């Protein structure tokens, strides 16, 4: 069951991410990106990471509120990417990255399981921790060991919220 859920979520994430990046309409791309982020929340649930799961859901809701909110993109987004042209250099980069993706998939599907038992992939030998981390432990670690980064990030989020309101007010 867990395996099926993982592969289903991974497929959704890959498909939605690829569509969101290649879409021409900004609103559609944002909605599809939200779907991919929602699937990532499911991955967090599989990893028993409750706190990142909740925050990921908040991120999806923030994205939805930004798209359909008062200063959203509902007005006229279809034309937001007009005039976008791909240069030959960008196409070359795209081909290289597509090749990397193909190598990545081939390695994952064919060579990964064969190499893992031999220990060539050191990470594959790692087994999950016996005890699942609980939220109080994560909270304690966050506020004891990483107090300054968390304060900085919260301040950054506050500034971003103020900036969003300022941009919205300037727009109206």
């Amino acid at each position: 069951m867990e395996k099926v859920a993982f592969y289903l979520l991974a497929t959704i994430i890959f498909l939605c991410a690829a569509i969101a990046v290649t879409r021409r309409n900004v609103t559609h791309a944002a909605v599809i990106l939200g779907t991919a982020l929602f699937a990532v929340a499911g991955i967090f649930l599989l990893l028993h990471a409750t706190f990142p799961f909740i925050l990921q859901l908040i991120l999806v809701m923030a994205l939805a509120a930004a798209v359909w909110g008062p200063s959203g993109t509902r007005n006229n987004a279809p034309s937001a990417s007009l005039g976008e042209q791909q240069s030959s250099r960008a196409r070359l980069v795209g081909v290289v990255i597509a090749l990397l993706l193909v190598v990545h998939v081939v390695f994952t599907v064919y060579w990964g399981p064969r190499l893992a038992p031999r220990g060539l992939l050191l990470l594959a030998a790692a087994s999950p921790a016996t005890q699942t981390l609980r939220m109080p432990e994560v909270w304690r670690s966050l506020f004891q060991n990483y107090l300054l980064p968390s304060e900085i990030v919260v301040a950054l989020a506050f500034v971003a919220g103020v900036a969003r309101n300022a941009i919205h007010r300037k727009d109206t």
Partner: protein
Amino acid sequence: MQLFSVSHYFFLSGGLFLIGVAGALLRRNAAFVAMSIALMATAATINFAAFSRFFGDPAGQNFSVILTIVAIAEALVFMALLGTYSKPGAAIPAPQSPPEPSFEPTPAPTDSAE
């Protein structure tokens, strides 16, 4: 019983990161570049959470939380910018690099007095 190793999540985040890199390099619209950066940050978040789960260290989840909050802030600002600048026929251009200087020799000034 856990059916997966950390390499599954590692490959998942690697693929997602590659898609984000492709979007950031190929698209000219700043909104798409922002979305691609958000995808890359999400890939890093998956990696942090997976390593935290498999090695039993809460630091990974802490960094995952920090990255997610940064992604929320980025989504707020960029979508507000998007709502502001999404006028008919308008695109938010990504910053362009300045044109490269030409190294052709400048023509010598001609004597106009003659």
